[in-house]
């Protein structure tokens, strides 16, 4: 170890205290969504539905009981004939752990909305395959990744992961390094799994 050269400067004076950082401006928050569409459904369903807007994007937060009736109405009466996406988010610390949402688009109105509902772990949702056939694979992926079952789906089985896989990867309690060791050992012949 070489000796550190001794500095010939006097030790620096203690720095003056920094001024307090200015308070951050409040970020955007969801605000109520006002439009004919929102009012129609609010009038219809009252407290089991909330219509909000965040950063210009409109969405409904609905009770589970409204599915699939409201979705059917959205397609039939309000021309939301294109189901863009069905997905879910897992909030393990919440009582109702899963947020399942449907992103819908109407060509005629050129409007995109989301419908969000919250369900608990183990609850299942009715499938919307009869409303939008595109939901077939989209719901299978939600089931594959989160374990949320959809009643009435014609063929609810895993789509991206192998059929015998155990575990639902996109849940928050599934670690990113985790694998179904048993499946890997049996099917790939790899012992360690890593």
């Amino acid at each position, binding site marked *: 170890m070489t000796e550190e050269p001794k500095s010939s400067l006097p030790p620096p004076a203690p720095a003056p205290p920094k001024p307090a950082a200015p308070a951050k401006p409040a970020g955007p928050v969801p605000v109520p969504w006002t439009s004919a569409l929102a009012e129609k459904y609010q009038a219809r369903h009252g407290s089991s539905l909330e219509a909000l807007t965040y950063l210009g994007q409109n969405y409904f937060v609905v009770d589970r009981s409204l599915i699939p009736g409201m979705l059917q109405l959205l397609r039939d009466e309000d021309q939301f004939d294109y189901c*863009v996406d069905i997905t879910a988010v897992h909030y393990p610390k919440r009582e109702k752990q899963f947020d399942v949402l449907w992103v819908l688009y109407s060509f005629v109105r050129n409007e995109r909305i989301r419908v969000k509902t919250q369900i608990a772990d183990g609850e299942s949702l009715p499938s919307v395959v009869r409303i939008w*056939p*595109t939901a077939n694979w989209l719901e299978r992926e939600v089931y594959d990744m989160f374990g949320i079952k959809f009643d009435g789906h*014609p063929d609810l089985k895993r789509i991206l992961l192998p059929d015998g896989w155990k575990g639902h*990867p996109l849940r928050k309690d599934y670690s990113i390094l985790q694998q179904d060791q048993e499946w890997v050992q049996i099917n790939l012949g790899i012992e360690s799994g890593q």
Partner: protein
Amino acid sequence: MNAQADPENALTNLDLETSERPHLDSNELIINMGPQHPATHGVLRVILRLDGEKVLGTECVIGYLHRGVEKIGENRTYTMFNPYVDRMDYVAAVSNGLGYCQTVEKLLNVEAPPRANYVRVILTELNRIASHQLWLGTHALDIGAMTPLFYTFRDREEILKIFEKYCGARLTTHAFRIGGCQYETYRGFEKEVKNYLQYLAPHIDEYEELLTTNRIWLERTKKVGVISAADAIALGVTGPVLRASGVKWDIRKAQPYANYSAFDFDIPTGENGDTYDRYLVRMAEMRQSLRIIEQAVNGIPEGPIMAKVPKVIKPPVGEVYHSIEAPKGELGYFIVSDGSTQPYRVRVRPPSFVNLQALDIMVRGLLVADVVAVIGTLDIVLGEVDR
């Protein structure tokens, strides 16, 4: 076959139990186009149920290329996740990057500066042309015309050279950053892009000369893989497949992003929704892209190329869905932020995944040789289907 009228019958999966074992003397045969097949454009397994040579039903088995991109998104910061999105639709990596960066910018409530938007548009449209060129070459090869493949790849090289000069990579470009573009355009960028526009226009004519009026091509692609507009919308199919069925919808016009409303271009549509129309629509889209690039490259404004975004990106709590018109269809990103530096949930809505669902409808009643043509015309990339 109207899927909306009878969704169950139209889309039920194969009844595999009753006809498990293939024999030649029974009426039905199950053939497996295995994950490794020269015509499936990646690792896709298609199980065909045939009556002689006619297809009764298909089942796609996907997931061979599943890499858990969405899970990775929850474990990387917003900036670190940017290179991962290129790897999904690796053929059109720039579009993926554009979608992701714009979604995060929406979350942050920042706008990319105009100069960045112009550069983004130029690169994205060049990428669209490159993706369509690759599609054309492989699709023609599947149907038996081996020469267009080499012509399109030769022309695609020039685009990849431009990308390489701009950001250092040809295929998985990572061209954009959250807030704009990291790199300024290199010296000679405008000139090279303009040269390419001059270079490509007669070559698109060359591709069309080989195929568009060729009797054999017409016989192989007309009335093959027809999907009606109603079925397409019900199945969520987007992109050139939807436009070829007659629905004039393009996100660049319907919900413009990145300043697309400043450019003047048409949306080509088809009438019949068959393979030939999809071919024509994509050829026309290439020409429209050339138009957009010409307008963009002639008017790149001066200014900063990157907006002021903090070094550590921490969007406020909330969720946002944003989609762009990728070459394959509507590519959407749904990002949930919990206020930390890592996304809480990144959901990618892949166009190829949803388009591939339509394969079953499109090949009913066709012959085995047509299945290959239809898979080609859907223009799927397994990286995007499986993520």
